[in-house]
């Protein structure tokens, strides 16, 4: 109990802050911060597994998040029959061609010794394959994108409940990580960072511009929800009764019936959106707790000890007969899969998929700030980092505004400097993140909750 005191203290402060937002701003804002904190926590757990457990640097988090989001679209949207009949065959055929191409490359790789000729053969196969696939898929893609482009113009998905996409998103991201890991894991740490960053940009470029699959920058809106809709809630009796019970003390103060009804309506509208957010919080909390239990178990298992050994001294671990390459690949896939879950959760919560919104600042570097600030190698630290940094990211604007008002209190309201500063309040969050990261790196390089290794 005593040795966990700092963990408990840190988490209570965090919860206290969120509750304060609930009291002073509104419960709606507090809950939406809380939900995104939970999603960030899942992402940081994924990054923490790679960086904290194994020392692998992965700047491609944005790509896996986007793939998770893509999974949400492909699982939940109803299939669009017209599009399938217009160009589905071509797409399926191209898919077979891609598989055939991959198999051919694999065959060449297995069959022949490494030589210049083999490289040329592989290059020829890939180039020819791409040209053939373009010819096959082009008419199909055009046909699909012409089907009601204002509303659909893509193949749609499977029409299943969106919850399934959380698992599928993990598989998508894990699959991509497997491919990337196979090619790039041998690189030195900083090269790996750059390579993963650039590969994630390629993934985003594909998601943005392959309209037949994702609608691209036209966005997919109105995804299914695992939670009830506010509009429906506002008309169900049990919910209205519940809200009435909750606010009975306030409502009883109002004597006039019409006024009381109006106040109740107001409470119901507010309550419905809080209730929906609470549903999401519950779902996300379940995911976070399951992942936390699993990652904690893994951390203290023989496998976790092996990973730390590999991280701290690769050569020694290799000499002890541990397969470093295989374990690196495994942990790369596992961590990315967790990030994929988070990506699907994010799209589920928003109810829309906007490929244009995936930017490295928000989805890669901010997550890294969370991991470093929270404490790499410690799951509780990583989750705390997710909470604290996201909280600051959102609340930076009000804090910044307050600071600006404080420092320029002597100036006139129309003073150029003051107006300019108030306009640029949204960018104070970057400043706070940067300074926070630099301070933590300098004075507490292991993060707020550092890694504890228990030697028994």
């Amino acid at each position: 109990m005593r040795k966990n005191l700092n963990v408990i203290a840190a988490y209570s402060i965090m919860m206290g802050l969120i509750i304060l937002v609930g009291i002073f701003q509104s419960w709606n804002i507090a809950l939406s911060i809380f939900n995104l904190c939970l999603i960030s926590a899942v992402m940081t757990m994924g990054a923490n597994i790679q960086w904290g457990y194994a020392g692998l640097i992965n700047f491609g988090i944005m790509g896996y998040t986007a793939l998770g989001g893509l999974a949400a679209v492909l699982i939940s949207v109803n299939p669009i029959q017209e599009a399938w009949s217009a160009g589905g065959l071509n797409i399926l055929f191209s898919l077979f061609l891609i598989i055939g191409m991959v198999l051919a490359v694999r065959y060449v790789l297995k069959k022949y010794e490494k030589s210049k000729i083999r490289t040329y053969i592989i290059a020829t196969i890939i180039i020819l394959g791409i040209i053939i696939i373009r010819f096959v898929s082009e008419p199909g893609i055009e046909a699909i994108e012409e089907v009601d482009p204002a509303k659909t113009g893509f193949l749609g998905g499977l029409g299943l409940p969106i919850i399934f996409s959380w698992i599928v998103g993990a598989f998508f991201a894990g699959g991509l990580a497997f491919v990337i890991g196979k090619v790039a894991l041998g690189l030195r740490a900083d090269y790996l960072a750059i390579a993963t960053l650039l590969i994630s940009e390629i993934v985003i470029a594909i998601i943005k511009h392959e309209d037949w699959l994702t609608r691209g920058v036209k966005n997919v809106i109105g995804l299914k929800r695992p939670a009830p809709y506010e509009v429906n809630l506002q008309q169900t009796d049990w919910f209205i009764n519940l809200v009435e019970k909750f606010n009975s003390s306030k409502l009883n103060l109002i004597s006039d019936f019409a006024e009381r009804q109006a106040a109740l309506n107001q409470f119901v509208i507010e309550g419905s959106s809080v209730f929906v957010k609470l549903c999401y919080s519950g779902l996300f909390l379940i995911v976070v707790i399951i992942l936390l239990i699993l990652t904690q178990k893994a951390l203290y298992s023989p496998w976790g000890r092996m990973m730390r050994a590999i991280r701290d001294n690769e050569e020694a671990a290799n000499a002890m007969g541990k397969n470093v390459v295989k374990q690196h690949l495994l942990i790369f896939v596992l961590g990315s899969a967790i990030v994929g879950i988070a990506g699907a959760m994010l799209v589920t919560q928003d109810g829309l998929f906007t490929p244009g919104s995936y930017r490295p600042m928000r989805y890669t570097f901010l997550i890294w700030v969370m991991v470093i600030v929270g404490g790499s190698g410690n799951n509780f630290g990583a989750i705390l980092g997710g909470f604290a940094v996201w909280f600051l990211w959102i609340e930076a604007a009000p804090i910044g505004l307050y600071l600006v008002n404080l420092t320029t209190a002597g100036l006139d309201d129309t003073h150029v400097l003051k107006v300019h500063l108030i306009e640029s309040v949204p960018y104070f969050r970057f400043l706070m993140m940067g300074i926070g990261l630099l301070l933590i790196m300098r004075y507490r390089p292991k993060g707020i909750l550092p890694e504890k290794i228990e030697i028994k």
Partner: protein
Amino acid sequence: MDFVNAIILLLNYIFVPALAYGSQLALGAIFVTLIYGILRFANFATGDMMSFGTMFTILFTWYFQSVGISLGVLPTALLAIPFAIIFMIGYMLLIDKFVFKYYRVNKSPPVQLAMVSIGVMFVTQAVVRIIIGPSDRRFFDGEKFIIKAVEFKEMTGLNEGLAIKSTQVLTIIVTLILVSTLFWFLNKTKTGKSMRAYSDNEDLALLSGIDPKKIVMITWVIAGILATIGGALYGLDKSFKPFTYFNNMLPIFAAAIVGGIGNPFGAFLGGYVIAFSEILLTYAYRKFFMYVLPESMEPGGLVQLLSTDYKFAVSFSILVIVLLYRPSGIFKGKVL
């Protein structure tokens, strides 16, 4: 069949733009490579440092414009660049003193320095946005074209026009001057040689009496010059927007690594490799083939290898291929 028109077409749409874009990338790539070779970390704040320098150039340009100083046909920004460089160098040295020095003295692993540079990236980005705002800004003045497409057509009587913007020529000339001075400095002067020695083998360099503090300072000074000029030229040619500069970091990294990180000459050529492949692979060759091939063989489609949306993806794919097959880059890296 009209080869002259076809060649002019390629010159106009591929060669000239790629040469200018490549020069801008090359300056950034040399900046990355210098930091990597001497201070030994991947600087993720590259793009934002360039936007920081450009911001000062713009501020000085505005000041000069407001007091009525101009260079006639040349853009006023040229006059502003030296002042911006002074501020930029001050900023760089300040960052080094308060941020990077601690990790260098403690001999932290390069990954940690890269993380620290992300912190610097956040701060720089915030400062730029707070001072000048996130919107698109053009600060070009003076004569826009050296040759206009219409004039060229009249002059030569060809179907295709060749337009050369003054910013493109300016970019190429300034880059050539700057890069050749830099290579002269690195290869011929004593300080330059000691920088190369320090990059090649730190311990040996220290033993032979090279002052590391001086080397580091000069590196930041050169980096400041390169970042400001590179950024300002890009901003003159296109426009200044903090977010674009942040994104430009990626092709710049690609150029530095393709050329062999730590090797300035490689980085210089790497910039052009990236620029040319981006433009060559995403250009629609339909018109070119219409000129070159007989009428019966005219192509139906656009004859475009990749859609322009994948412009960035091209350079990244090249980088990934290079990393896989020649991790040290096309021109062996790690020798300054």
